[in-house]
């Protein structure tokens, strides 16, 4: 294991990197990075559900979408809404949806859970398309005011400036990911792993299984909502397309490519996808082909993902040293 | 040796449920594999038939290596498997269940007087004929056990693996199943039998293997086991 000093050095390096990133790489890559970071939070949240409990959701784009619409609609209708409060609106909308869904889904089997989420996910997508006067349908809601980040009389930072927004997004997304990470280290996190490894035993110990799952479910829905909320602010646009089923699958793929069951795997996976999209869209028209082939290769030859690959090579390296 | 199982090591995930398990079966004999619940008897059978893949060790049948092969390949070579819990196909009729056991090309390899087919099975077990149109799932426990054995017989096996055939049956049915296995063996089919009813096992088998947790504890003839109460106490009594 790394000792404390190296750990602190690594964290500081990461922090410095995040701070100077927009200054070094310019606006274009700053925006690419924000897109990646949003995907990372979203994927980490889904991974909590998938990796730590074995529940596969085919419909979590609805939480992302509801978070995004929550923020956008609040900003359209409430004049002078503070920035942070608009994000809270997104979080709360997603949480509310999760609160309604939780009693329906926490008792289901893994397959039924996946299917019902796909069904409700498609329902949400169709509703977003059809309820035009609320959601704007295909065109979505765009060009809503982006309030500055301010404390009256102290400071006011313009959030339409990409660099400023970058720092704001990094703080919100970073803190969110940190909170989720922290949760995995609490007794509640251990309980989740317990649910995955032996559902019956945890129930036996006196913990209420459905309730435990429900708490986790709320957490995951809420943070997917925050990712959506930041997305809406970042794009200044949210349309029904973001709720399309493919957006539920992509997160699962990122988790898979990064490595299922590890907390940081999804971040890695989101990074790989961001780089891939960037590269393929630049050098070839065949984005789908490249992503398709990569998925096939990963699942056939590296089903444990990049994290698994890392462990694989690390073990080999160490065994060779021992010879 | 008809079947030669050497040093099987089988895992479920991280748990090592067979440790260097070995046994042999010769032509014509009934061999009992005994031990308390959870020792690995079923896993031994599954490792032979190929339903679980051992990490190391060998399964040699009729001189050929079948280790790690697909179950259908092992079954086609002549090993018949009657599983614990019977595993009747509940939605198929009794007749279809029997037909599922037919293995193309195997009947020709057996002497015609020992050959099992639908007629001979119906003749031996008229109750199955009576119920032939009924769904497998509607049979009673005893009938299901009979059907499970007959289904495997339809494939004309040259070696039978039978896992706990009398489990949950009434004393009359236990005797019936016992006699059935005896008949099958007298007709020339060697049997590896896992059985909790010690009386049944001892009355059928000529040799026994006793399993301790995941490994072989004792092997010998029925007489040796009979004369050895400590061994029985160690491996069998609860």
């Amino acid at each position, binding site marked *: 294991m790394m000792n404390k000093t190296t750990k602190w050095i690594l964290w500081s390096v990461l922090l410095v990197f995040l701070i100077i990133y927009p200054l070094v790489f310019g606006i274009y890559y700053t925006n690419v990075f924000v897109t990646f970071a949003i995907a990372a939070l979203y994927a980490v949240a889904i991974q909590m559900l998938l990796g730590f409990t074995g529940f596969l959701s085919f419909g979590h784009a609805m939480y992302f979408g509801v978070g995004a619409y929550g923020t956008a609609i609040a900003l359209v209708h409430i004049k002078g809404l503070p920035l942070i409060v608009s994000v809270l609106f997104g979080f709360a909308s997603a949480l509310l949806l999760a609160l309604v869904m939780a009693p329906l889904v926490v008792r289901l089997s893994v397959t*039924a859970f996946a299917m019902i989420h796909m069904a409700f996910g498609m329902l949400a997508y169709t509703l977003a398309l059809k309820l035009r006067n609320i959601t704007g349908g295909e065109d979505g809601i765009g060009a809503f005011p982006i309030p500055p980040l301010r404390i009256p009389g102290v400071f006011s930072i313009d959030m339409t400036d990409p660099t400023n927004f970058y720092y704001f997004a990094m703080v919100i997304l970073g803190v969110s990911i940190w909170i989720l990470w922290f949760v995995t280290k609490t007794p509640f996190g251990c309980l989740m792993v317990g649910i995955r490894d032996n559902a019956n035993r945890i129930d036996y110990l006196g913990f209420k299984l459905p309730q435990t799952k429900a708490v986790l479910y709320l957490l995951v829905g809420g943070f997917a909502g925050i990712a959506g909320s930041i997305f809406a602010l970042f794009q200044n646009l949210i349309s029904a397309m973001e709720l399309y089923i493919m957006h539920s699958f992509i997160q699962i793929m990122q988790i*898979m490519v990064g490595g299922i069951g590890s907390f940081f795997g999804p971040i890695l996976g989101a990074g790989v996808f961001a780089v891939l999209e960037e590269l393929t869209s630049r050098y070839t028209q065949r984005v789908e082909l490249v992503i398709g*082939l990569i*998925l096939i290769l990963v*699942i056939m030859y590296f089903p444990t993902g990049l994290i698994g690959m890392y462990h694989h090579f690390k073990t080999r390296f160490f065994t060779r040293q021992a010879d | 040796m008809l079947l030669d199982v050497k040093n099987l090591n089988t895992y479920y995930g991280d748990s090592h449920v067979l440790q260097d398990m070995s046994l042999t079966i010769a032509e014509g004999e009934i061999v009992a594999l005994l031990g308390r619940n959870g020792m690995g008897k079923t896993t031994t059978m599954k490792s032979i038939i190929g339903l679980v893949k051992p990490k190391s060790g060998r399964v040699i049948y009729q001189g050929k290596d079948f280790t790690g092969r697909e179950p259908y390949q092992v*079954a086609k070579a002549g090993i018949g498997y009657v599983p614990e819990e019977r595993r009747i196909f509940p*939605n198929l009729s009794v007749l279809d269940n029997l037909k*599922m056991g037919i293995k193309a090309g195997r009947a020709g390899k057996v002497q015609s007087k020992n050959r099992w087919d639908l007629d001979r099975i119906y003749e031996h077990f008229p109750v199955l004929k009576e119920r032939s149109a009924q769904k497998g799932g509607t049979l009673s426990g005893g009938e299901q056990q009979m059907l499970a054995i007959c289904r495997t017989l339809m494939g004309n096996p040259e070696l039978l693996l039978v896992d706990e055939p009398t489990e949950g049956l009434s004393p009359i049915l236990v005797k019936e199943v016992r006699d059935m296995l005896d008949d099958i063996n007298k007709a020339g089919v060697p049997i590896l039998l896992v059985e909790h009813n010690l009386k049944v096992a001892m009355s059928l088998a000529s040799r026994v293997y006793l399993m301790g947790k995941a490994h072989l504890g004792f092997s010998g003839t029925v007489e040796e086991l009979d004369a050895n109460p400590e061994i029985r106490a160690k491996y069998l009594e609860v």
Partner: protein
Amino acid sequence: MDATTAMYVAQGLHGLAYGMILFLVASGLTLIFGMMGILTLAHAAFFMLSAYFSYQVMQMTQNFWLALLIAPVVAGIVGVLCERFLIRRVHVMGHIGELILTVGISLVILDAVKAIWSTDSLYVDIPECLQGLVSIVGMEYPIYRLFIIGLALLVLIFMALILYKTRLGMIVRAAVSDADMVNALGINVPLVFMLVFGVGTWMAGVAGVAIAPILTVFPGLADQMGMDAYIIVVVGGFGSLSGAFLVSIIFGLLSSYGVQFVSQLAPILMFIFMAIVLVIKPVGIFGERE
């Protein structure tokens, strides 16, 4: 018959035709996903691929019947190859491995189709003998839609015969409840799975050829249909052909009458139906297991 009744009947027939096409796709999926437990998201891609094959055959021979014969078979062969060399190997990983893999396969097929045939809508003609209208109880109705209903019924009967009258069907029905036991009885289960995958894909292929003249052939052809088929299998109950049939027809009718009466909300009707069914009975209408 007055005009209103005629309209009801016409909408009903339209719904029936759409429901039958849905059923062709969904029943293939019932075989593969419902019965064999292989979660494939590539099913819709094969449906689309077969439509393109039929366009190609039509281009070369101008013969619809030849297209109907060849295209689904070629699509089925592609499906079998995918099963044999890719899907089979990830089956042990469970549904998530199959999900990723088949999404990958879909993307590759989608892109290959775009590369070969471009993204334009391609037109496939209805064969001459099926063009025009026929008069049923005093109203005009397109022959081709009746043909689709007949074709789907034919495939349904064919499949029922295979399932309930052949040894292969018996093996499939047995494997649904206990594939390992079937394997241990000496039956080459991997081969059976491969065949079933081929037949299921072939059925989607037939639907693809049948729909091509109505909707034209384009890369997004499978989006709606694939989703609907998937939902049908879940709502009808995993592995239940009759469930798939019932729900296909209900969906077909919901969509045609829905457009008539609540056009705005028509697509949502299916989801509401599905949500209600799944909340009440998570295993689907005729489902017994999960």
